[in-house]
C-alpha cells in the first residue's frame, strides 16, 4: 500500500494504484448494496458532516447514504437556511462544525480550492465533493468504476469528453482519472467552451465531432441555458445541431456517459439516454458504493487511524 491518504481533494492525489485500491473496495461495497440489510459497522460512532454550499441531488444523497451504510452519524448542512446564509465565513463554519469532532467533512462549494482550504482548518478528513469548476474527484472515481465494470481496463482506450469543458469540474477530474488509468482523452466542443491552454494536460482538443468514431466512450457534459445568455453559444438549438450526441453521430459499440442531470434533447438525444449504449443509470448506481469506499479509505484504510482503532 502506498501513502496513507488523509483527504481526497483532487483525483491527482490518488494515482493509478490509489484509484484501483478504492475501486476494488467499492466493488465489495456494491455487493453490500445488494443485501437486504445494506449496512456495515465500519464507521459506527463516528460522525460525517456533509457541507453543501451548492444544490446537488445525486452527490449529496449518495454521500449521505454512503456514510449511513457505513453506520456513521451523519449531519447534512445546506447553505440555505443555515448560518452560511447569514454571512458566516467558511472558516468560522468549519471551526464551529469541528467542535463536533467529525471524522470527515464532505464539502461541495461553488469556489475553486474550498476543500483544500477546509483541510487546512480541521482535524477531520476532507472529501472534495466539487469545488467550483476545479474538481469533482468522486465523480471521476464512479465514472472509472462504471467503465471498468462494463469494458474492463481503460489502458489504450479512447475517451472523448464532449461539450462545455470550460465550466466543468467533472471534465477536469475525469481527464486526470482517465489518463491515470491509461486512456487517451480528447476534448471536443465549441471553441468558446474549450479553455485556452487545456491541451497542456496532454489531451487532444478539437472543435469538430468529425472523428468521433475514434472514441470507445463518449462522455457528454451538461450544457446549461445560461451559457447562451453569456454568448458562449448562440443558441441551444444550434449547439444541439452541431454537438448533440445522437444515434446519427454514434457508431455501433460506442458507449455514452453523462454526469447528470441531463438536458434531454440538448447535449444528448432522448433515444440515446434510454438506450443500451447509455451508462447513465449505472453511473448513478455506482455513486454510493464508490463514496463508501472513499470514506472507508480515508477513515479506516489509513494506517494512521487504523493504529488508533
Amino acid at each position: 500500500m502506498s501513502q496513507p491518504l488523509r483527504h481526497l481533494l483532487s483525483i491527482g492525489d490518488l494515482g493509478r494504484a490509489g484509484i484501483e485500491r478504492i475501486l476494488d473496495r467499492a466493488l465489495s461495497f456494491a455487493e453490500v448494496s445488494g443485501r437486504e440489510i445494506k449496512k456495515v459497522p465500519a464507521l459506527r460512532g463516528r460522525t460525517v458532516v456533509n457541507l453543501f454550499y451548492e444544490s446537488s441531488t445525486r452527490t449529496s444523497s449518495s454521500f449521505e447514504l454512503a456514510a449511513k451504510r457505513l453506520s456513521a452519524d451523519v449531519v447534512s448542512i445546506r447553505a440555505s437556511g443555515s448560518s452560511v446564509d447569514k454571512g458566516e465565513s467558511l472558516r468560522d463554519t468549519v471551526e464551529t462544525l469541528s467542535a463536533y469532532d467529525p471524522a470527515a467533512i464532505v464539502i461541495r462549494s461553488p469556489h475553486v480550492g474550498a476543500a483544500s482550504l477546509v483541510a487546512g482548518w480541521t482535524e477531520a478528513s476532507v472529501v472534495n465533493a466539487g469545488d467550483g469548476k476545479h474538481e469533482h474527484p468522486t465523480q471521476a472515481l464512479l465514472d472509472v468504476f462504471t467503465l471498468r465494470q462494463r469494458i474492463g481496463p481503460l489502458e489504450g482506450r479512447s475517451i472523448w469528453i464532449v461539450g462545455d469543458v470550460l465550466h466543468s469540474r467533472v471534465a477536469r477530474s475525469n481527464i486526470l482519472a482517465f489518463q491515470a488509468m491509461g486512456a487517451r482523452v480528447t476534448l471536443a466542443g465549441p471553441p468558446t467552451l474549450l479553455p485556452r491552454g487545456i491541451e497542456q494536460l496532454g489531451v487532444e482538443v478539437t472543435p469538430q465531432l468529425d472523428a468521433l468514431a475514434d472514441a470507445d466512450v463518449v462522455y457528454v457534459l451538461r450544457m446549461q441555458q445560461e451559457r447562451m445568455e453569456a454568448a458562449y453559444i448562440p443558441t441551444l438549438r444550434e449547439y444541439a445541431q452541431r454537438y448533440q450526441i445522437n444515434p446519427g453521430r454514434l457508431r455501433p459499440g460506442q458507449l455514452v456517459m453523462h454526469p447528470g442531470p441531463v438536458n434531454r434533447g440538448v447535449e444528448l438525444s432522448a433515444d440515446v439516454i434510454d438506450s443500451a449504449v447509455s451508462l447513465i443509470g449505472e453511473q448513478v448506481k455506482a455513486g454510493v458504493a464508490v463514496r463508501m469506499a472513499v470514506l472507508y479509505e480515508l477513515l479506516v484504510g489509513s494506517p494512521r487511524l487504523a493504529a488508533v482503532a
Partner: protein
Amino acid sequence: MNDSRLRQFQAAGPPADLLISSVYVLDPRSGIDGARDVLIRGGMVAEVAPADSLEAPAGSERVDGRGRHLFPGFVDPHVHLRSPGQEYKEDVRTGTTAAAAGGFVSIIAMPNTAPPIDSVPILEAVIATARAEARIPTGFLAAITVGLGGRELTEMAALRDAGALGFTDDGKPVTSAGLLRRALQYQRLVGGALALHEEDPELSGAGVMHEGAVSARLGLAGIPSVSESTFIARDAALARYEEAAVHFQHVSAAESVEALGDARIRADTSGVRISAEATPHHLTLTDEALTGLDTRLKMNPPLRTEADRQAIVDGLRSGLLTCIATDHAPHARHEKEQPLEQAPMGTTGLETAFAAVFSELVRPGVLSLALVVERLSAGGEPFGLAPPTIQPGVPANLVLINLEGRWVVGAHGYRSRSANCCFDGRRLWGVVDLTIAAGQVAFRATADGGHPHRQEDR
C-alpha cells in the same frame, strides 16, 4: 504648488547628522561607483569624500559602512496606504514605516480608499494625516473620476492646487475612451500625470488569474493578456493625440511591452510623455505559482507566464518600463483566508521590493545592480519628483543595505499591518540597515530580534 516638493508630506523630525564611513556608494545618476565616506549634516549631504578620509564631527554619529552599499533611496509611485477608511489593512504610519524598512524614501499613495480621494476636503484630510504620521515624504494621486465611478471627472484643477501629484482610478481602468480623452486634456491644463490601470473589463470578465494552461487546469476564470495590452495601445494613442502625460501602472504582459514599444516609437515626435512600471512580483513570479491556490499570489494584473515575465524583465532593462513600483496592496487575514475566487486581489511589497529583485534578478546576473537601483529610484519622475541622488548640497535620501545579509520574508513579522506578501517564506538576500528620507532617519535596523529583517547567520 509648482514645486513638487510641496506635494509630498511627512511628519517633522530631527535632521540627521552622521558620517557613513567607508561605504560602497553606487549612484547611477551622480556616477559614483566606489568606496566613499558620506557626511550628512542637518539632513543634507555635506560631503562625499574618499573612503576613510573624513572624521565624524563632534556630536554626530559615525556609521561603519564597511561591507555595506549606499544607494540613492527608493521611490515607489504605487502604494495603497488604505487611509482613509480601511485602516484595519494599513494606515499612513504603518505603510510609511514598511516603506522605510524597505529602503524607500518617498512614496505615492493611491486614491481607491473608502471614501476615495476624489474631492479637495478628502485630499486635505489625508495630507493632514501624512503631515502628522508619515515617516517618509508621501504624495497622493487623486481620482480621475468621481467615486472612481468612471462617469464624471473630479475637480482636477482644484485637486492639483490642493496638492495632488497626479490622478488615477487605480484598481479600475477608465473604460470610456471619451472620458479619458477629457481627462488627458485636463491633465495638460493642470500638470501632473495620469496613472492608468489598464484592462478591458469586458475581456477580464470574472477572471481571477492569468488565462492560460494553469487557469485551464484549475478551472479558474482567466484574465487574458490582451485585456491589458489593448487598453495600453488605445490609451497611448489617445495620450499622443492630446500630447498628455500618462504613466502605465503595473505592466504584466508581453503584448503590453510590445504596445509600449510601438507607442515609444511614435512618441519621440510629439509632446506626449509616457512612462511605465514593473512590479517586483511580475518581474520574478509566474502563474505556475498559483497551482497551490495561495491567495497571497492573487493580484491584478495577475502573474502571467514565463514568457511574459521575461518580457517584463527585458522591458525594464531596455527602459520601456521606466521604474519599479510595488503596487503594495495590503489586505487583512480574514479577507485573504477565503477561496481564491473570493479573496481580494493584491500583495504587499514595500518591505521586499529590493530584496526580491536583487535576489532573483541581480544575483543571478540577469540585471545589473546599477540598473535596478536606478529603476527603483525613478518612480517619482513621471509626477515631477526629482530622483534621489547622492551628492553634496542635496537633502539626504539614501539607503544603506547589506547585500550579503539573508533573511526569511515574514519570519519576524512585517512592519506593514498586513501579511499578505507573495514572497512570504522565501529566503532573500539584501538587508536594509538604514534609510534616510528627506534628511531624517526613517528606518534603522536594530540588533535585537524584534527586527523583521534580522540578518541570519551566514
